[in-house]
């Protein structure tokens, strides 16, 4: 028989997070406590769920327009204007997708030619590199540094640029590090991007979960950047709507028009029921987001303090719901640390190396868990490191 497989797909290694979750599943032990999950522990706010139910009872269960319900696109336009100071035309510059993930895939396919390079700062979420490869492009990794609190530095970007570079991928607030980039940081990056005529794909799915004093800045809001930036955002993290599978991309009409083709032929349209719920989220959900952000922030501070007390080095991550403590001083790889922590204390955390080689020596700690769970988990870490 001939080889049935596509060699590009075959060469992509399985997700490092998956490998670790499989280990946890193999243990099949009810005593295992996990800080591994990367999704909100909150239920979708009730008024949003109710709109979903209402859509079903009213029979609003048809396809929507490919780009999503116009009503929703208008709300997205208002939301991005209200929160990030960038306005997009609902008719031509907004595409509603199946989560942020589809938007990333569609954007890469729409923009990249074979051989083009996508600059991806790591540690980062596991899907970016594979998506670039699916699009026939070459991912070029920048290893971010802990001493810069995992923020991309202009000189690091400069050093990664070749004549093939086309897209810079940004993902702040970041999964897995929790790092954020403020306006001043982004301005330096924007200058390099414009000078080298690059484009930016900015995954801003965690934008609402930023614990800095200054409000979140989208790179698209900086002078000269709107026309060369595609923003990916969605409802999963901000509104605790992961299972509704709804995200969106906003960008220049020229790019969105081509993304639309990928989306229209591969997906058709996002689920209509979810779209009606999302309209409610954008219209009346700001208070819910503030509440959940407040809760995450409390947990974040709690963990930071406890790591400090345990003598575990952890920079003050100010975004998403992750901390990224450094475990280098214990003389183990992150894989080994995580595996021994799991075996010894029945606590599951994801090794930083799952998110790129620069994540080696770190752990991703999710605080999308109740304070009670976090307390139990931290006690286990304490018990583990005290024996090392």
């Amino acid at each position, binding site marked *: 028989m001939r080889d049935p497989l596509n060699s590009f797909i075959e060469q992509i290694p399985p997700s*490092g997070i998956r490998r670790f979750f499989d280990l946890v599943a193999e243990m099949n032990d009810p005593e295992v406590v996990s800080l591994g*999950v990367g999704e909100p*522990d909150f239920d979708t706010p009730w008024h949003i769920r109710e709109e979903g139910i209402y859509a079903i009872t009213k029979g609003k269960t048809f396809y929507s327009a490919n780009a999503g319900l116009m009503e929703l696109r208008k709300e997205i336009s208002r939301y991005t204007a209200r929160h990030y100071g960038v306005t997009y035309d609902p008719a031509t510059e907004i595409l509603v997708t199946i989560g942020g993930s589809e938007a990333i895939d569609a954007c890469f396919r729409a923009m990249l030619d074979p051989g083009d390079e996508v600059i991806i700062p790591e540690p980062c979420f596991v899907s970016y590199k594979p998506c670039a490869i699916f699009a026939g492009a070459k991912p070029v990794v920048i290893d971010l540094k802990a001493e810069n609190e995992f923020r991309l530095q202009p000189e690091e970007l400069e050093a990664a640029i070749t004549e093939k570079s086309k897209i810079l991928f940004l993902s702040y607030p970041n999964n897995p590090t929790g790092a954020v980039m403020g306006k001043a940081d982004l301005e330096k990056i924007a200058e390099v991007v414009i000078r080298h005529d690059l484009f930016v794909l900015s995954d801003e799915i965690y934008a609402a979960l930023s614990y800095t004093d200054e409000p979140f800045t989208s790179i698209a809001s900086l002078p000269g950047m709107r026309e060369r930036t595609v923003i990916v955002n969605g409802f999963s993290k901000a509104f605790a709507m992961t299972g509704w599978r709804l995200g969106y991309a906003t960008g220049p009409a020229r790019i969105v028009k081509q993304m639309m083709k990928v989306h229209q032929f591969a997906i058709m349209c996002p689920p209509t029921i979810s779209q009606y719920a999302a309209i409610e989220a954008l219209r009346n959900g700001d208070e819910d987001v503030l509440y959940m952000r407040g809760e995450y922030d*409390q947990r974040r*501070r*709690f963990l930071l303090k406890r790591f400090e007390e345990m003598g575990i080095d952890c920079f003050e991550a100010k975004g998403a719901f992750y901390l990224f403590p450094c475990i280098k001083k214990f003389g183990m790889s992150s894989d080994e640390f995580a595996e021994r922590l799991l075996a010894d204390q029945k606590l599951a955390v994801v090794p930083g190396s799952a998110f790129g080689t620069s994540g080696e020596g770190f752990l991703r700690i999710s605080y999308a868990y109740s304070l009670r769970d976090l*307390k139990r988990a931290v006690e286990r870490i304490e018990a583990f490191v005290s024996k090392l």
Partner: protein
Amino acid sequence: MTEKILTILEKNARIRTDDLANILGEDSYMVRQEVERLESEKVICGYHTLINWDKVGQEKADAFIEVKVAPQRGVGFDQVAERIWQYPEVSSIFLVSGNCDFIVLLQGKSMREIAMFVSEKLATIDGVLSTMTQFILKKYKQDGFVVENPRKDEREAIS
């Protein structure tokens, strides 16, 4: 800081002061002092444990009693209210607008105890014109907590 402390304690009265300080990013000593001040000034009136007595097989009833009274010159409703709230059986009493004057809440008593209290004590107080007792048949949510079995974490592994 005060408002944040109160918001957290309102949901979790048992939180340790150290943890409270940590999640607020404040000094533990300062937080302790502030909680003590709030307690002494009766901003924090007490700490209450919400118990589902059904689960330990105890048959305890709760009832709302609507009470109509004749307000008295000079003291309005307050004097009658005091004569009612002084009874230890009364868990809460509120002056309300609408069809009655007070709503009295009795909690954790037997049906008989509630009946006796209403007929022999409450109804006979000077100024009480009428009472209407409403027994609680089932609790769904109380003080912000949903009365049901705890939910498991149903988030699945995804990558």
